[in-house]
């Protein structure tokens, strides 16, 4: 059998194996839309709490609505994707982040100790930096690590200046590290989908 196969065919087989294994892994990375969704949710919550009615409900309502939307969209998406260890590890980071933020900010809110905007901005940005950094190290994705550095920078800058300046830092970080990064990720995914070929027997 070996005699009948050309070197090109052998190399082609090796290439096929590599691309297919990578394809399976890449599927779990199709999460960029969640970054855009959550970025928009943060901005909606900030705008509502500043100018909307009953500002006390702005963050809880927006965050719960964003969580439900994410869960619904992910459950639909999960039917089309395989389960991988990497996917589960990445998912666990974001679930842990969501639970941590919910528990910490709810506790701070109910105890009446969240009055200082600087504290909120610094903790939120720091936690988002942590999650993005962990994810970027797993995926070896430099752009996401840049987003993590952006969050950490915002976490430091958010401690200084007036409350309004701290909020501006948060909005800028949400726009750059969440929305722009999410759109970039979606563009990468679209480009990968275009490059995908078909395999026949």
């Amino acid at each position: 059998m070996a005699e009948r196969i050309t070197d090109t065919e052998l190399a082609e087989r090796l290439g096929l194996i590599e691309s297919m294994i990578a394809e399976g892994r890449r599927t779990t990375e199709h999460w960029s839309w969640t970054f855009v969704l959550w970025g928009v949710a943060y901005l909606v919550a900030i705008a509502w709490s500043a100018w909307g009615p009953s500002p006390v409900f702005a963050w809880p309502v927006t965050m719960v609505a964003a969580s439900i939307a994410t869960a619904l969209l992910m459950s639909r998406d999960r039917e089309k994707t395989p389960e991988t260890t990497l996917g589960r590890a990445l998912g666990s980071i974001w679930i842990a982040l969501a639970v941590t933020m919910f528990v910490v900010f709810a506790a701070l809110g109910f105890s009446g100790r969240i009055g200082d905007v600087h504290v909120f901005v610094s903790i939120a940005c720091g936690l988002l930096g942590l999650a993005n950094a962990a994810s970027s190290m797993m995926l070896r994705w430099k752009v996401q690590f840049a987003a993590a550095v952006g969050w950490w920078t915002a976490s430091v800058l958010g401690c200084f200046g007036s409350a309004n300046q701290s909020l501006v830092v948060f909005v800028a970080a949400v726009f750059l590290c969440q929305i722009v990064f999410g759109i970039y990720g979606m563009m990468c995914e679209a480009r990968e989908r275009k490059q995908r070929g078909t395999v026949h027997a």
Partner: protein
Amino acid sequence: MPELPELNPVIHGKLRLALLSLLAGVEEAEFTWLRGKTGSTDGNLGAQLLKLEEAGYVAMEKRFVMRKPQTVYRITEVGRQALTEYVQALKQLLGAAIES
């Protein structure tokens, strides 16, 4: 001259090789996902998966998710070992071709 390795005929088929490689990168995958990744027809895909299953390289499970039937495939240890050996044989053949 060293003896050249034989390539496993069950894995060597292009679609079967693609399927086994895809399953090597995931824990389990649905029939529809495999169809989407390979661009194959239902009939051809089913036939090739059956050959892999008969060889003991993949395991199939039928289940219901939200009342919808779902056919899930996963690579077995035997399948993973066979794919590893196939890759080693390919590399050996390519190495032999380069040396000659």
